[in-house]
């Protein structure tokens, strides 16, 4: 404020940007801003269509809150992909869906058949998920397999084991069916009467996972190392970072998160299904889509937790609105179209941003 007068003289080569171009610049370079704008646009569009009577059902805050149940597995797996993709060198994990299937079956056996306690079964799920992730990590980090190939191979192997482990049969004994109660919606304390009820899984699984991943990435030495090896392998090695160990841990963490998603899915379906992570297009594709949409660079070293959550919200609320707006049972098909178009659009925008502004944050 004090230097208003000399400022133009000091920087004559840079004329002050107009408000419009600054907004465009912010939208293009700040992925968070872009996602918020898109999110508002999607919600506003469906609200207006609701008011105008174009929707077959109400698109209100209750409906939006109930649809958040789909957010839990998506965001958690996208966080797993965030860790792996940020680790660089073509990092990607195609096997997360298969880990969900296999861990879900092991969890189902332990809790539903062998009569283990819930906590012990969850710890087992975490352990199995971590072990399966460690196999991925060992192949990629220590043996030097390209991540795409290693996780393609384990996608086949884990998926096959998940089907064979219980002779292709799902497990839905009494204790498993009772787990469905954890998938219910709850009223928030204090402010609950004014807000719609929110699915319990958001608080028990998704938010804790997001906070832990955020702390790991943004507040620990390990997180800085992960960004370092993702940005440049060799430079990180010269900075005395144990590249192999750091990269391996990213895959182990992704496996652990997938193990937790297995518990969520078993509870949501009230049944441990051998094809839980493989239904439809599989769980890996939407998770990678959300990660890319959330601004994670596929080349590694760039990506934030906030982007993942906003990207997940965008996809879930878009998906929730589409069946209301489209007559008949064409809804799921248009969800595919929306997912594809949004992903291609986000990727092309990333390319444009890179050329015009030298990268986004």
């Amino acid at each position, binding site marked *: 404020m004090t230097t208003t007068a000399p400022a133009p003289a000091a920087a004559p080569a840079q004329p002050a940007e107009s408000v419009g171009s600054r907004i465009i610049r912010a939208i293009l370079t700040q992925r968070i801003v872009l996602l918020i704008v898109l999110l508002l646009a999607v919600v506003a569009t469906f609200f207006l269509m609701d008011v105008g009577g174009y929707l077959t059902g109400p698109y209100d805050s209750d409906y939006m809150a109930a649809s958040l149940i789909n957010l839990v597995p998506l965001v958690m797996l996208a966080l797993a992909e965030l860790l792996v993709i940020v680790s660089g060198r*073509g990092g990607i994990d195609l096997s997360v869906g298969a880990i969900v299937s296999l861990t879900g079956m092991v969890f189902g056996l332990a809790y539903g058949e062998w009569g283990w306690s819930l906590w012990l079964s969850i710890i087992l799920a975490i352990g199995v998920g971590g072990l399966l992730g460690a196999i991925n990590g060992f192949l990629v980090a220590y*043996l030097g397999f*390209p991540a795409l190939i290693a996780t393609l191979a384990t996608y086949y192997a884990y998926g*096959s084991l998940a089907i064979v482990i219980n*002779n292709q049969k799902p497990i839905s004994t009494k204790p498993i069916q009772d787990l469905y109660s954890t998938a219910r919606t709850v009223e928030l304390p204090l402010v609950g009467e004014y807000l719609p009820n929110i699915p319990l899984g958001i608080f028990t699984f998704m938010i804790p996972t997001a906070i832990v991943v955020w702390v790991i990435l943004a507040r620990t030495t390990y997180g800085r190392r992960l960004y370092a090896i993702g940005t440049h392998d060799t430079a990180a090695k010269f900075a005395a970072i144990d590249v192999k160990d750091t990269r391996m841990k990213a895959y182990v963490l992704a496996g652990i998160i997938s193990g937790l998603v297995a518990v969520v899915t078993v509870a949501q379906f009230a049944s441990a299904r051998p094809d839980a992570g493989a239904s439809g297009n599989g769980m890996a594709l939407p998770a990678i889509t959300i990660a890319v949409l959330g601004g994670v660079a596929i080349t590694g070293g760039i990506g934030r937790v906030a982007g993942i959550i906003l990207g997940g919200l965008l996809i879930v609320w878009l998906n929730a609105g589409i069946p209301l707006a489209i007559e008949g049972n*064409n809804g799921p098909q248009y969800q595919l179209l929306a997912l594809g178009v949004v992903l291609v659009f986000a990727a*092309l925008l990333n*390319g444009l941003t890179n050329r015009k502004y030298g990268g986004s944050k």
Partner: protein
Amino acid sequence: MSAPTTLGPDLGAKPVKVRNRVLSPPVSGQELVLIGVIVVLWAILAFATPAFLTSGSILPLLAGVAPIAVMGIGMTVIIITGGIDVSIAGMLMVCAVITAKTMVGYEVSLPVIVLIAIGVGAALGAINGVLIAYGRVHAIIITFGTANVFQFLGLQIFGSSTVNNIPRTLSVFGAGPAGRTWGIPHGFAIMVVLAAIMWWYLRHTAGGRHFYAIGGDAHAARLAGVRVQRRTLLAYVITGAVVGLGACFTIALGTATVQQNIGSGRELAVIAAVVIGGTSIMGGRGSVLGTVLGALLVQTVSTGVTQLGWQSQLSNLFVGVFIVIAVGADLIRQRARRKV
């Protein structure tokens, strides 16, 4: 890093094998190993189940290899350029449903229907190619996106039901007696011819070598005068076209009904065949011959698992293990080569 070597007069004392050939040998080590593995597997299966080495089992196996291998020919080119295409399941579905609906609705001859399938495939491949080459975005992201869009297109054309009572126009590619000449399945023969043409094109023409140059270093290739974007686009169009042909084979091998899940999971099976065949996912290295052998191996495993009376889902476990072994062997050889 070793100390800088001094160029002395005694350099010629140790005869060093000259490694300055531009072309790799016609059959690489990986391919020899694959041939060995396939021979061993066939021998084991022949001992384990007497039914394996009969024409009733081998001929369907060869016919069944054709769709994966023929699509693998295109995928090999893409992966050599350093790209990847995970949308071919969606492409296959669109090609199959358009082909099937055309056959049900109109009297069409065989060449016309095959041309329609190839044309549709090439058009879809061109969409991928334009976005990847000119949008300058990583191939895996774009093809994940277009995979969803193609799936949408396919389901829309399906009209949420199966296509029934498909005429037997395509039975010349099938596993039945109409699909063979002198005992050789037509689909397999066509695949071998196409693979041979592509093998020669990639190895012995300037245009073919350009794909390797792009995969090795796209920037260097551009400076050397390769039209990188056009070549990249061509790789995806080729793949689209062979996926169209693969769709014809897949319909012919099935029943008179095409279901919505046609093609599901095929993208990973094709990538598995290419990778087992020794093509490097990082680009710049690979051959069509390896891909054909890789597809043969995958098909042998799934046939073998079924004939041994095991759960058919177990075959995926073996496919996974074979990917790890094949790529692991390649990694070890690469390291040995770097030490030489």
